[in-house]
């Protein structure tokens, strides 16, 4: 290595050394100012490492609120639909009742005749066993009567 290169190397080392010394001085000066400022400032407990939990809690609360409002809206809609369905069913039942009443009022004679026929058949079926021969005789007689008439 020539003396020129050696001199250049030594010069470079000096520059690097000086730069590193100044770098340390700059860190020291900055740190001292920041330290004294922070010491004079009222200290608030800043906990950045816990920010993740706060953020997660915020998100969870937000999600719960959003889910709650969606569920509320769905419940309200369903409730309204149910009420409408009940009202429609009531209206239909009333209409049917009205129609039945109207039809009954239109043909009262027929209804009475039907009722009498039902009662007759019920009575004729309810003949006690002791009266069975008499009933048979009556049937025969009525058959005979109808035969003579023919």
């Amino acid at each position, binding site marked *: 290595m020539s003396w020129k290169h050696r001199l250049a190397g030594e010069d470079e080392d000096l520059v690097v050394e000086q730069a590193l010394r100044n770098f340390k001085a700059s860190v020291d000066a*900055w740190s001292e100012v920041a330290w004294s400022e922070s010491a004079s400032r009222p200290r608030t407990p800043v906990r950045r490492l816990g920010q993740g939990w706060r953020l997660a809690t915020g998100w969870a609360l937000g999600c719960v609120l959003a889910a709650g409002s969606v569920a509320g809206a769905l419940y309200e809609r369903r409730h309204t639909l149910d009420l409408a369905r009940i009202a429609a069913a009531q209206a239909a039942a009333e209409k049917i009742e009205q129609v039945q009443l109207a039809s009954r009022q239109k043909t009262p004679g027929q209804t009475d005749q039907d009722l009498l026929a039902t009662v007759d058949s019920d009575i004729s079926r309810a003949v006690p066993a002791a009266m069975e021969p008499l009933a048979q005789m009556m049937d025969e007689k009525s058959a005979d009567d109808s035969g003579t008439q023919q």
Partner: protein
Amino acid sequence: MTVVTAEGVAAQDFSRVVEVHRPQIFRFLLASLRDVDLAETLTQECFLKAHRNWGRFRGDSSPMTWLMRIAINLQKDHWRNRRMQFWRQTRANAVDLDEAGEWLPSGERTAEQRMLARERVAQVWSVVGNLSERQRTVFLLRYVEERELSEIAQATGLSEGTVKAHLSRALGRVRAELRGTR
């Protein structure tokens, strides 16, 4: 000595440790993170952790080395958490590299010398900002905290050879950066 008295002595010892080493830990974290608020917070965390584990400190290393190790781990956790974030928050409190170079005590004689010195300090800051986390830690412990290689090895959990290699690479980059402007 009763238990109460021993605890009292330990508490006194710890407050002395805090008093002596707190500004140094803060300075290291500040240089490493370039964020005053974050450096303060991590310094608080560091001494909180140290206080919790003070009873288990056996004195194998100096309290400063032990504290520095806690600070380095906290800093690692911080960077890891930042990497894990899906969205990166901009560091509103972080100081720009040029701004960090402004903190130069005016020891130089002429205005030109002052300007040159400031420029070179800014260049060193720039190199430090671009070093890997491990290289930066080793570099700052050596050239700002002026720790011995053995202490750096203890604080970082690296071997002395690895520390030397990291220092050599970091210094090479500083040298190259400074050579560029000459």
